[in-house]
């Protein structure tokens, strides 16, 4: 088992190196001249001489891999370069944004799991009951709602009709509710659907009849056995949703002006501030890959039979 995990960690490192190269390549190929961008953001008229000097200073003429190496070495030391917009280091901005995003993402993750796990289990246990049909219809609709749309609807309902919340979240606890809810609704729907399917599959296994035949309490059958056996799969489901959550948080943070890394990257896209975008992709990619590795390990611990192909 440890051998397998070591192998996965090695794979992860390779993956991250490739990701960083692709990210850098993307910026390298992107239209626009960073030197021009940096100079014009200072609000002075740009002359040809200034431009050449700036290009020289930024080392733009050097070969791709030299520039990549320099950037990557910086990233390893936690230095993501200087912003093209205001010449300030990018790393502190990313760090602050990330911590806000983690607050938002965790809140929505917890919110959706609190509902999805019991709903998924009950719906699977009471298969084809009215309850099950209701849960299935609701989760189907939830799954079909883009989260930008949910957020607009929620905003209209809570902020304008009911006047309960501030429209702009800007990092307060009160402001956390609507963005977290916007992210949680479609995610909760997907979790419910997937957890229901997992539990239903597990309920059909022979051992469930065996347990019931020995008179084991139904709550023990469901929680200590069925849910326990499904835990690995449920972690995998969650880990895969983290990716969707990251994309969703960009949209939601922009709408609610939540000062997370997603809003930061949207502002940077408008300003063509490439170092921030690169940092964003790299950080998100790393988290996603790491979370998936973690769910893999949990799966292995729960079900050592999964040696994978």
């Amino acid at each position, binding site marked *: 088992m440890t051998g397998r995990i070591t192998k996965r960690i090695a794979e992860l490192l390779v*993956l991250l190196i*490739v*990701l960083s190269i692709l*990210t850098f390549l*993307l*910026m390298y*190929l*992107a*239209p626009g001249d960073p030197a021009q961008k940096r100079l014009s953001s200072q609000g002075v008229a740009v002359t040809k001489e200034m431009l050449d000097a700036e290009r020289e200073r930024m080392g733009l003429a050097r070969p791709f891999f030299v520039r990549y190496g320099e950037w990557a070495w910086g990233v390893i030391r936690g230095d993501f370069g200087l912003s093209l917009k205001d010449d300030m280091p990018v790393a502190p901005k990313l760090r602050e944004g990330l911590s806000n995003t983690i607050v938002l993402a965790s809140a929505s993750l917890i919110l959706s799991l609190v509902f999805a796990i019991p709903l998924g289990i009950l719906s699977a246990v009471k298969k084809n009951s009215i309850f099950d049909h209701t849960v299935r219809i609701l989760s*189907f*609709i939830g*799954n*079909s*709602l*883009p*989260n*930008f*749309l949910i957020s*607009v*609807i929620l*905003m*209209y309902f809570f902020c*304008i009709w009911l006047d309960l919340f501030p429209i702009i979240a800007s990092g307060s606890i009160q402001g956390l509710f609507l963005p977290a809810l916007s992210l949680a609704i479609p995610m909760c729907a997907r979790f419910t659907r997937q957890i229901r399917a997992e539990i239903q599959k597990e309920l059909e296994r022979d051992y469930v009849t065996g347990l019931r035949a020995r008179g084991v309490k139904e709550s023990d059958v469901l929680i200590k056995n069925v849910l326990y056996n499904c835990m690995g799969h449920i972690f995998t489901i969650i880990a895969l949703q*983290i*990716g*969707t959550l*990251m*994309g*969703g948080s*960009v*949209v939601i943070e*922009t*709408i609610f002006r939540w000062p997370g890394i997603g809003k930061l*990257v*949207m502002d940077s*896209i408008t300003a*063509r501030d*490439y170092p921030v*975008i690169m940092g*964003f*992709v790299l950080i*998100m*990619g790393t988290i*996603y*890959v790491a979370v*998936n590795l973690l769910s893999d390990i949990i799966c292995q611990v729960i079900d050592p039979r999964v040696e994978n192909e």
Partner: protein
Amino acid sequence: MSREKQRLKKKMIFAAVCAAILVIIAVFSGVIAPNDPYATNATLIRKPPSAEFIFGTDNMGRCVFSRVLIGARTTIAATFFLVAISFVIGTLIGMLCGYYGGVVDDILMRFADLMLAFPQMVVAIAVAGMLGGGLFGALLALGVTAWTSFARLARSHTLSIKNEPYITVARLSGKKGAYIILHHILPNIVEPVLVNALTQIGTTMIGISGLSFLGLGVVAPQAEWGSMISEGRAYIQIAPWTVLFPAAATVITIIVFNYLGDVVMEYKNE
């Protein structure tokens, strides 16, 4: 069992009819639209729904109903285009990898794994952002990862049939690889891959309208639901209809296509 299958078949026909109606509306939106979706009129700004403008008018006095109709064409056409391209490219790559195997298979499948290893929307936002918006940029950004599910599926199905007797016979009788792939493998694997295409429509639509909403997809003034919602959001308090109708259109369309994908999947598994 067969009663269940009958029931699913009815559901499937219902879903397919709904989807067909949406597609027909999108195709003929130019004819159906009562007004010019791009004609601005300073005297008709943010008029509530009326007989003339049944969905009201937006911030520039444009007819929301006509824009929703034309927007259907943009959204549905873009989605179908992207899914079709990913389907063709993915299936082709998958069949080649599965049939020939070897180094090419290793490299392409590693690459597909790599693409799957990163969150799709994050990649799409970054790529679309770098490309600087526009529908083409958005499609490319989503397409970077969209082909992989088709490739994986086509590959695994190819692997499962490539040693069947009829393919061995074709090979021994001297048929070329390309001929075998097109005449023997493709017809036998196309069904599950098509079902996958169907289930991808909903997600793709969410992706495209999401990027447009962020301003990374369709550029104003072109009508597209995501960007219409984004525009209307600013004056949702005074003119909720500018958001409400494109939102309803988005939800209904995604629901219809997701439903179709779900039922077809269920029917196939039954």
